[in-house]
Structure formats: structure tokens, C-alpha cells
């Protein structure tokens, strides 16, 4: 689990080479060891995939929360706690036109979350020329 988190964290930070090294060198042997310690049907690939997806989302949200808190702490000495964000944190790559970073490969399920979230609030129609 820790290894999965490290991979996701590295990817969220845009350090893809290190993430890939972990995934290709360390992860297969760790996974094999975990599987051999359990019964043969334990931890199929689909569960591993789900584990990565869940962890990626968690790391993304934590990253954004950290960013928001950092901003808040920086501004905290100047103003009151009303600077706290009113809305719940969202994953870093959920922010359209955020920091312009295109480093992380987004998970499809996360993109669908964004779509559903956008659909649930009123928005202007797409441009039609």
C-alpha cells in the first residue's frame, strides 16, 4: 500500500521517471510477495488497478488540500479564518486551467467525476458558431 502511495505521489509531482522505476523494479516483486503470502486468487489485477485509482484520487485531493492550506497559512497572519475555502477540495487535475501542468496522466474515472460534477451545476452552453 505504501508503495502504491509513493508511486501515485511521484506521479502527482510529475516525477514520472522515478514512479516508473518504482513500478517496474520494486512493485512486481512486492506484489508477488504479497500474493504468495495469501491464497492464489488474492489481489487480482483488477483490485490492484482499483487500488491505484483510489490512491491516486486520495493523493490528488491531499495535494490540493495541502496547497489550499499553505495559501491559508500564508494569508492567515494577514487576515481571518474567513479565507478558508467554502467548497470541498477537489483533485489537483480537476482544476481546468489550473497551473498549466500536463504532467500526470489522468484516470478516466476521475475525468468522469469531473463531467458529472459539471453536469450537476448549471453552466453556459458550449460555443456553437
Amino acid at each position: 500500500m505504501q508503495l502504491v502511495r509513493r508511486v501515485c505521489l511521484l506521479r502527482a509531482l510529475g516525477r514520472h521517471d522515478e514512479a516508473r522505476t518504482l513500478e517496474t523494479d520494486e512493485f512486481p516483486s512486492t506484489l508477488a510477495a504479497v500474493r504468495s503470502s495469501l491464497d492464489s486468487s488474492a489481489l487480482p489485477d483488477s483490485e490492484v488497478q482499483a487500488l491505484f485509482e483510489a490512491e491516486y484520487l486520495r493523493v490528488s485531493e491531499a495535494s490540493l488540500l495541502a496547497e489550499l492550506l499553505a495559501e491559508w497559512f500564508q494569508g492567515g497572519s494577514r487576515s481571518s479564518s474567513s479565507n478558508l475555502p467554502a467548497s470541498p477540495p477537489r483533485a489537483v487535475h480537476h482544476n481546468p486551467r489550473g497551473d498549466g501542468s500536463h504532467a500526470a496522466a489522468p484516470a478516466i474515472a476521475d475525468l468522469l467525476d469531473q463531467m458529472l460534477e459539471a453536469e450537476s451545476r448549471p453552466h453556459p452552453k458550449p460555443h456553437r458558431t
Partner: protein
Amino acid sequence: MPTILTERPTSSPSASPATSSTGSTPANGTVSGTARRSDHKVILLGFDLGTNKSCVLAGAPGSADFAVSKVIPSVVGYVKEGIVDGIITGNQRLLFGDLALQNALHAELVAPLAEGIISQQEAARDFFHHVRSLVDPTGQAEIRAVVGIPANAGSAARDSIRQCAMGSFERILLIPEPFLAALGFREDGRVGQPGYVDPVTNSLFVDIGGGTSDLCLVQGYFPTPDDQISIPFAGDAIDSLIMDDLNRTYPNNGLTRGRIREIKEAHAYVGAIRKPIDVRVILGGKAHTLELGEVLGRAANTLIDRIYPALTSLIARAPSDGVVTLLQNIVVTGGGSQIKGIDTVLQQRLVDDGYEAPKVRLAGQDYKRYVALGAIKAARSARDNQWQVLLG
């Protein structure tokens, strides 16, 4: 208005299960109408619902294989009264796709869509039923369909699709086509490799269909309305221009829309006028050769004139730090990508306007399948709580 319910269970994300979970009681206490098919197998469907052609890819959850892979003309044929037994195979009253077109003399042909959205509800409902029967002949499975929609599809157009899908599919997700094209075009095995630019991370897709041309910035998040431009000018509009032009030059030529489309698909081009392009046609039972170089060029170049401003408009909206990479990743897909020279003409116009080393490329021969491929990838990745459940 169809009744839909988006399930929002609190469980952690997980891959789609191999069997249905629709027997559960949703948060609002409504019992799902799909319970009749609970405990049966689930079939995932990627459905590119096109104005002229639709593509269907279907498979089981957890499998990379497709049990069904078909491109079907989006047309329903209602067999006319009084047709003698045996004329239509199996004496069917309802025909679909190629079979409908082959029996055009004996059936009233109805296209369910116009300009990318449903215009004939009954035909659309029949068409959806047909798609269901293709992917699940037993009628017992739970169908989870991701359906591609034009970038401009508003809530009425979406509701219309859901309404028509009721009774055919149990769960549905409606996703803009150019975004699905990017997903379908993505080579998943190469994501993360050095030198590979993931189209889902930073690209601009130009999807030229029959009814609409949809342009979309795909930049690692789900496209917002600002990232998409839809133009109600595409293949059908080119057909109309060709037809009008021909009618002026050759009055009473008797060429059908279908024949015009065939001519366009075989010869259309953009750029400098090419002459001669001689096309053999049958008019009044006699063979004639028409020189169509100018007619075809004029009509297709109109498409460029409509698309190019939208293309530059979207480029202007892209974040400045990613725009150089974006310019390297402009992809033309859909039937319009088969118009000769469309990539080079768009690229040259960008170069002429001073854009930095733009690269416009074609999606390739698989252009008919990318939207459906993206749709089934989305279906395979969607969590249980992301599907909208259609309550009959």
C-alpha cells in the same frame, strides 16, 4: 422526461463488477427499475451514435476483447404496406442499417438523427432496440452504455437520448464525442513512455461527422464548455452544397443524396482546385461523365473556412505554457478526416498565420471506431456510482 438516477454509494472506487448490482436500493428509496435484470451478466457498450453512421463496440467487464464490433448506417426502414411476402428477408417490418438501405424501394427510410441529435424519437427508440439485440440477443443482460454526443448537445438533446434508451439500456453515460475520440485514440500502453504525448493530456481534436464538426481541447481534465466548439456544418452540409451546385449545372440530374455522398467520399478534397475529376454517373438510365473537380473543391473548402476560425479560437484559449505541445497534437478524425488534404491544408494555414511548428495529423483508417473505442474504455473505467440508471 425520462427518470434517471445517478447512484452515489459511499464505497471506495472499484472496477465495474462482472455482475449487476442494480438490486440495491438507491439513496432516495426508489427501487431501481433495472431489478428485472439483476443477477444477470453485464455487457458494456461503447456507442458512437452518429448522424449517418453509428459504431458499436461491446464486451464483458474485465475483458479487453470485443464480442461485437460493428459500424451501422444510422437509418431505420419501415417496410411499406402491401409488399409481397418474400420480397423482404424474413418478411421483417423493421429494417436497420445496410439492410434498410438495400431495401430503400420497399421501405420508408428514417434517419433518427439530424445534426448530431435525435430528431425522430420513434426511429431512435427502434434503432436503440436494434443495437441492444445485436449486443445481447438473449435480452437478459444488463447493458451499460456509454453514448457519444456532440459537443453542443444541451440538456434537451441529452434527455432525448435517455428517453429513447429506456427499455434498451439499463445504465447510461453521455460523453462528448471529441473527448471520447481522444480516449479512443490514446495508446494506453505508451502512456508514460518518453516521447509519447498522451492525447488525453494535451491535444486538440477536430471530429468531423455527418451533422456536426466538433472541436475540443483535451488537456487532462474533463473539457468545459469553453473547451469545445460545435459547428453545424459537416459532411451532410458538404453534400448539400455539391447537390445545389450540380442542380444548377445539370438540372434534373436525378442524383440521390446517397449517390452524392458516395461521390464525395471517393473524391472530395480541400486546397487548390484540382481538375479534371471525372465521375461516371447514370442519369436517366444513360451513363454520363461529369467533371466535378471544381464542384467538389468548392464545397469541401467551405468546411475549412468554417473550421479554421474555431480551431484558432480554441488554440487561443489554451494555457500558454502548454500551447506549443498542443500545436504538435492536433488530430482530425471522423468521416471528414477522409477528405483529401484536410490535414495539410489546416496545417499550412496555421503556419501561414505564424503558429509555432504546428502539426496536424489524421486519426487514421480506424477513424470510424475511435469514438466507440473511447466510449467502451470509459465504460470499463466507470465506477458503479457514476452510471446513470434509467428507470423504466
